């Protein structure tokens, strides 16, 4: 990997980590485990379109692992990993179909998939299939959060594109 790329990825990871940490400080939106804005996904989406799928996956993985370690809750890692894995597997193929102007689309589906992954992991770990009851709520909130992060990532991309194309 070139030095330039390494720096790029490191910067993106750092950005994602900062967003992640700051977001954790916000009070939870609803008393439902797992409802968060997922703002760090802005970086993932952006990296996906700006650089490429592998790099986006790398940055996300690094952010999740480091975020878990810094945040102190190692047990929560499994849920984040599962969520991110499912989210990436949905967003990556979508990049080929959806142009950057419509980034909110993979944003929505990626966020919904992320929450689905988290529930799947939670059910598997706690062995309570009853948790599936949370599915509609989390998928819906995922759609809303994903729309927001997708729009943000899209706006960021277009802004930067204009700047670098000049």
């Amino acid at each position: 990997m070139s030095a330039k790329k390494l720096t790029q990825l490191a910067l993106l990871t750092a950005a994602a980590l900062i967003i992640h940490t700051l977001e954790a400080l916000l009070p939870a939106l609803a008393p439902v485990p797992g409802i968060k804005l997922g703002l760090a996904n802005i970086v993932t989406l952006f990296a996906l379109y700006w650089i490429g799928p592998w790099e986006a996956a790398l940055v996300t993985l690094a952010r999740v692992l480091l975020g878990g370690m810094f945040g102190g809750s190692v047990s929560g890692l499994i849920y984040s990993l599962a969520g991110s894995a499912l989210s990436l597997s949905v967003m990556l193929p979508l990049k080929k179909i959806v142009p950057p102007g419509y980034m909110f689309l993979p944003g929505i589906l990626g966020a919904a998939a992320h929450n689905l992954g988290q529930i799947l992991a939670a059910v598997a770990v706690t062995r309570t299939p009853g948790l599936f009851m949370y599915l509609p709520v989390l998928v819906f909130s995922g759609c809303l959060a994903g729309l927001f992060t997708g729009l943000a990532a899209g706006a960021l991309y277009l802004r930067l594109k204009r700047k670098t194309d000049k």
Partner: protein
Amino acid sequence: MRDKKVRLVLAVCVLLALVSGIWTYLSLKPASRDSIVITVDGEVIYEGSGTESEPKRVTVKTADGENVILIDSIGVRVESADCPDKSCVRMGYLKSANLPIVCLPHRLVISFGGASGELDAVSQ
């Protein structure tokens, strides 16, 4: 061609949001508080009435921590927990049959009767 595919994805997103939205609304119905079940790791560790005339506390100690569950005349809620995010405490009283109170780090779930509530008969 790209345009058609994008429209398809858009349609899927809209559909997903609509379906999950409606489903969420429907699933938030309040439920009868006749009986509740507390499980850890899927194993039932407490089963009983969802309301008690005298406040009753159930302390659940797991390898990862402790939750104190309060059952009073209003219903059941987690009074205190030593998990990092305490979302289980912030959930307040168990209201909906479909959204159990969950403490994920402790793998604790409090839900209404469910499989355990309805009895088919009582032998006496």
